């Protein structure tokens, strides 16, 4: 069967994410857009994933628990897991490696995390936009050891991508690579290519997505489909 996924969404926890982007709202919008799988991937932080998990239980959406990690190269990578716990473990690890520079909400927006009723539980004070002190290779190891997917984000963008930072795509054991444009305008080697929305506002959820072939709309189904490249990215509209 074919299933539709968007694996790159920011909630109100990301400094650039709209405050309207509560986990519950994200799930509502994704259901309306007809998605089967959805990953929440806030910058360097996993603190909204519990509320996301809770919201997804009342829906037909399979939640994928992610973090968009900014490595020491300042390259963004989607790190995706089947359980909140695995993602939170990586989240703690990453937060401990962030330079202790406070966020300025006036300039970058708030970094709030919420409970399942959308009550604000707290605010992350350290800026989540920074590069964590971990190299791509070390991060890959941490993610793979925890059974996660490791997907360099928007590699065809002119900033904060592996390619924009390094000038080339290091040949590492990626689960897939994410592009903004399909067919790709850059060399994606033999990697499986996916397209996601990178939504920061409700109306952008699923504006880009991809379909994959699997027996079931689960993390395992997704994992196998990426490994076998049974994936159809979305053409640039």
């Amino acid at each position, binding site marked *: 069967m074919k299933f539709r996924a968007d694996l790159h969404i920011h909630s109100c926890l990301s400094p650039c994410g709209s405050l309207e982007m509560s986990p519950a709202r994200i799930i509502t919008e994704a259901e309306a857009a007809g998605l089967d799988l959805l990953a929440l991937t806030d910058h360097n932080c996993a603190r909204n994933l519990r509320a996301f998990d809770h919201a997804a239980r009342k829906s037909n959406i399979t939640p994928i628990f992610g973090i968009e990690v900014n490595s*020491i*190269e300042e390259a963004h990578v989607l790190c995706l897991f089947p359980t909140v716990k695995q993602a939170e473990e990586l989240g703690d690890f990453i937060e401990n490696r962030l330079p202790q520079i406070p966020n300025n909400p006036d300039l970058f927006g708030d970094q709030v995390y919420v409970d399942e009723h959308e009550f604000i539980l707290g605010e992350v004070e350290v800026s989540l936009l920074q590069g964590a002190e971990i*190299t791509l290779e070390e991060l890959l190891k941490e993610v793979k050891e925890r059974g996660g997917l490791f997907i360099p984000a928007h590699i065809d963008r002119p900033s904060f991508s592996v390619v924009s*930072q*390094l*000038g*080339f795509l290091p040949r590492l054991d990626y689960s897939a690579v994410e592009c903004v444009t399909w067919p790709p305008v850059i060399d994606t080697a033999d990697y499986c290519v996916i397209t996601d929305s990178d939504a920061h506002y409700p109306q952008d959820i699923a504006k880009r997505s991809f379909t994959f072939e699997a027996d079931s709309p689960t993390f395992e189904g997704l994992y196998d489909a990426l490994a076998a490249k049974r994936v159809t990215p979305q053409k640039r509209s």
Partner: protein
Amino acid sequence: MKTADIGKVLGYECLCSEGMEAEIVDGYTSDLLSDVMGNAPDSSVLITIQAHRNSVAVASLAGIRAIVLCNGRKAPEEMIEAAINEDIAIFRTSDNQFTTSWKIAGLLKKN
């Protein structure tokens, strides 16, 4: 000037002492490696805070002979190993990129 002068004259800490006799004729300061790859001159020293293995790969491609890591950035073991293989020296300083560039430009001018 020789690569070794960066350590000898400026007192910068040497993390990888390969290619100390190499002649350096120019320098390039950037923390965006794609920019380094496109614009760094041959036989130059790279002044940066990008302390990881991929900096060495880019330096090698661009014909850079030495890397100076600024703001006291630590070099991971894999970066030093890569530098040994590519014959690229690595130095470290607590100076920032501006000060380092200014000091190295002074050295290049004298030689």
